[in-house]
């Protein structure tokens, strides 16, 4: 399915929020369990990994919800010597990550009207690499977290 799908851990879940905690647990554990070798990531980077993956899967669930797509969401996680790569694949409507609206300045009163819109920024800030491939048939987000 993807260039990663031949290695590491894979997880397929229904597109509902109840499974987010499970995804974080699996990815966090996989990052700590590279088949006997020790983890490339310290606990802080594992926490970052859990957060960015959670953001990506949340977006995948939201995107499929928008168009009522009940397809399951695919997550795979490959652990290398000094980094972890996670891919999240959905069948939502797709989007252009380069034309997302900006949030108002954080100290203005208008900012409080925005309860969303922080996920992609968090992914970009915490990942060493965040690649989005998106089209009308769905989105693949590939996140790389290196040891700090």
């Amino acid at each position, binding site marked *: 399915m993807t260039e990663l799908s031949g290695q590491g851990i894979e997880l397929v879940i229904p597109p509902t929020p109840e499974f987010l905690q499970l995804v*974080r647990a699996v990815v966090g554990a996989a990052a700590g369990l590279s088949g006997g070798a020790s983890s490339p990531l310290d606990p802080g980077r594992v926490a970052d990994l859990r957060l960015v993956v959670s953001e990506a899967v949340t977006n995948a669930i939201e995107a499929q919800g928008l168009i009522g797509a009940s397809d399951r969401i695919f997550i795979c996680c490959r652990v290398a010597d000094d980094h972890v790569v996670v891919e999240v694949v959905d069948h939502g409507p797709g989007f252009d990550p380069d034309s997302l609206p900006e949030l108002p300045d954080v100290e203005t009163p208008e900012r409080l009207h925005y309860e969303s819109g922080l996920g992609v920024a968090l992914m970009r800030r915490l990942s060493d690499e965040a690649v989005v491939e998106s089209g009308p048939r769905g989105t693949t987000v590939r996140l790389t977290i290196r040891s700090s």
Partner: protein
Amino acid sequence: MQIHVHRRDLSWTTSDVDPAGVVLTVLGDLDMAGAPSLRQAVVAEVANGFRLVVLELTGVDFIDSVGLGVVVGALRRLRSHGGDLLVVCAEPRIRGVFELCDLDRVFDLHIDVETALSKRLAA
């Protein structure tokens, strides 16, 4: 539901503070699955006339952008009713997520409920 929200009237704890205050202690993961419970809890307190909510996040194991969104929404709701929201959060990992999104410039993140309330009284 992945979170639990416990409530405690402030009037019950100390008579020095706003009697229309309440502490909401959140336990669990504040993500897309847990956020609705907290949102509902805040809506209910405001509807019941409470104007000061102390959000105690020390027992939160995980927070993401959806969880942050609920905290932002709670502040807006309280302010629009002339009230206020105080956030208590001792765990560096959770504080770090607020900071990453510059939300520490919107909320003071207090170490414990007592500190939050005493700073408010001093202000």
